[in-house]
C-alpha cells in the first residue's frame, strides 16, 4: 500500500536502473500561484503511469516540465536517465509528446506531417518512407494521407498527432489528456496504441480526468490534487482504500481529498485548460461544484 503524500517519501534514488522517469521534490509556481507543490514519483521502464486529476491540478505543468518545455523552480527530474535541466537534448531525443490539442501542420498532408517528423529525427530516407506507410496503415489514415490536415476531422487529427509522436521511436511517451473529447471508439484505439507501446518496452506517462482510463491502462495511478500527489498506488490499491464495496476511482478521489474529481462536463472538453506557459490558472474552486 503506497498511499502517502510527501510526509513519507518512498522515491528510490533517481539514477536507479530500470527507472524511466524519476521526479523528486518538484515545485513550480507561476507568479504567486503555486501549481506544483513538491511532487515525487517514479515510473519503471515499460509501465504506464496515470496522473489523475481535475482541471488546474497541475497535470499539464507536470508534462511540460518532464518534456523540457518548462523548467522547474525546484526539485530533480530525470527522464530516460538524463536530467531535464542539464541534458535537455538527450531527454528530447528519447521522448515523444502528444499534447491535449493536436499539434499538427494543417497546411501539410498527413503523409507530409509524418515525413517532417521523420526528417527532424534524422531517420534515413528508406526507413522513413516505410515507417510513414506503416503508421498511416496502423492509424487508419491511408485514405486521407494525401489530403491536407486542414480538411480532416478532429479524431483523425488526434490520431495523426499520436502517429507523429511514434514515428520518432521514443522510449518515453507523454500523453496529456490523449482522449479528451474523443468518441468511445477513438478512445479505445488510443488505449490499444498505449498497450502496444508498453508491450514493446516503452514507458508511458499519461494524464487524464477519466477515471476508467486510468483504471484500464495504468500500472500505477497518482492522484494529483492542487499540485500535490494526494495518493498513489495501483488502481486496485486505491480502490481498497475506500470503505465498502463496489468502489471506483471517483470514490477514491472523494475519500482522499474530501472532494470529487470530476470537474468538467465531458461534452465540453474545450474548458479543459490547465495552467500552462503564462496562462492564467483555472479556477480551482470549479472542481468542487460537481459530485457523483
Amino acid at each position, binding site marked *: 500500500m503506497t498511499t502517502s503524500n510527501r510526509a513519507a517519501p518512498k522515491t528510490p534514488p533517481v539514477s536507479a536502473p530500470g527507472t524511466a522517469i524519476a521526479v523528486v521534490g518538484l515545485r513550480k509556481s507561476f507568479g504567486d500561484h503555486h501549481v506544483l507543490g513538491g511532487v515525487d514519483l517514479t515510473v519503471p521502464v515499460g509501465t504506464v503511469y496515470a496522473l489523475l486529476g481535475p482541471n488546474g491540478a497541475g497535470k499539464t505543468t507536470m508534462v511540460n516540465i518532464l*518534456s523540457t*518545455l518548462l523548467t522547474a523552480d525546484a526539485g530533480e527530474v530525470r527522464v530516460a536517465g538524463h536530467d531535464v535541466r542539464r541534458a535537455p537534448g538527450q531527454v*528530447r531525443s528519447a521522448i515523444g509528446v502528444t499534447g491535449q490539442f*493536436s499539434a499538427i501542420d494543417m497546411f*501539410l498532408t498527413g503523409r507530409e506531417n509524418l515525413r517532417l517528423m521523420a526528417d527532424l529525427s534524422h531517420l534515413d530516407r528508406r526507413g522513413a518512407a516505410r515507417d510513414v506507410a506503416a503508421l498511416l496503415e496502423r492509424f487508419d489514415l491511408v485514405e486521407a494521407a494525401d489530403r*491536407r490536415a486542414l480538411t480532416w476531422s478532429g479524431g483523425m487529427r488526434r490520431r495523426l498527432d499520436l502517429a507523429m509522436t511514434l514515428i*520518432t521511436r521514443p522510449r518515453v511517451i507523454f500523453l496529456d489528456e490523449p482522449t479528451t473529447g474523443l468518441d468511445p471508439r477513438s478512445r479505445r484505439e488510443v488505449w490499444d496504441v498505449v498497450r502496444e507501446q508498453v508491450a514493446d518496452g516503452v514507458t508511458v506517462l499519461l494524464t487524464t480526468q477519466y477515471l476508467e482510463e486510468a483504471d484500464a491502462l495504468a500500472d500505477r495511478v497518482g492522484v494529483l490534487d492542487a499540485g500535490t500527489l494526494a495518493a498513489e498506488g495501483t488502481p486496485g490499491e486505491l480502490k481498497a482504500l475506500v470503505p465498502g464495496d463496489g468502489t471506483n476511482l471517483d470514490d477514491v478521489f472523494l475519500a482522499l481529498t474530501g472532494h470529487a474529481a470530476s470537474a468538467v462536463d465531458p461534452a465540453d472538453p474545450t474548458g479543459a485548460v490547465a495552467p500552462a*506557459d503564462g496562462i492564467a490558472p483555472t479556477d480551482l474552486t470549479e472542481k468542487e461544484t460537481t459530485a457523483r
Partner: protein
Amino acid sequence: MMPTYVVRDSMTMLRRNLRHLSRYPSLAVMLIAIPVVFLLLFVYVFGGTLGAGLPVHGGGTRADYLTYLVPGIWIMTVSSVANGTAVAVAIDQTGGMFARFRTMDISRVSVLAGHVLGAVIRTVLALAVMIVVAVLLGFRSDAGLPGWLGAAGLVLLLAFSFTWLTVAMGLAAGSIETASNTPLVLMVLPIVSSGFVPTEQMPVGLRQFAEHQPFTPIIETLRSLTSGAPVASEGWFAVGWCVVIGAVGYLWSRRQLGRVPTR
C-alpha cells in the same frame, strides 16, 4: 546537437515553409497586392498633384512622382511580406507546432530558420514583382550595377532584420489576429517618412519625427542608390537602423521562444 544536424534541420524547416507558400499562394499574392495597390493609387490618383509639389525645377509631373515614390513602395513591400511572417509564426506558436519542435532534439536556430529563410526568399520574389510593375508603369533608373548591387544588399539586410522583428511579434502575439495587426506599424511608418512626400512640407513636430525615424534614411539611401546619386551619411544611418532592428528582433525572438535551458 551535431552542427551538421543544425544545417539539415534548418533545410527541413525551410522545405516546410516553402511548401506552405506553394500550397497557399493566395496569402503571398495578397501581401504583394497591398503595395501594388498603394503604388497605383498614389501614382494615378494623387500622382499628378503630388508631382507638382516635388522640389524639382518648375514643379514635377506624374512621371517624376513615380520615380520619387518607387523606393518607398519597395520598402513597403518588405514590410508587407514581414507582416505575413508574423502570421505564419503565430500559427505555429498557437497551434502547438513550436512546442512540438521544442520537445524534439532540434536546435533552437533550426526551429525558426524555416520562417526566417523562407521570409527572405518571399521578399526577393515580391521585390522582383514590384520592380517589374514599376518598370511597366514607366520607372527608369540611371543607376549602374554598383548602385543596384548596393540597393539589393540594403533591401536584403532590411528584409532580414524585419523578419526577425516580425518573428518576435508573431511569437509574442498570443493570437493570429494580434499577429496580423501588430506589424501594421511597419506598413504605416513608411507613409510618415520621406517615402511618399518630402518631409520639408510637413508641420514641424511631424517633420522632426519623419526625418529621424528609421524609414527615412533607409528610403533615402535606396533612392540614391537606384537613381545613381551619391549616398551621403544617411547610408550609415540606414545600415545602422537595420542592424539595430534586426538585433532587437533576434533577441526578442529568442526570449519569446521559451525559457528552455540553452543547449
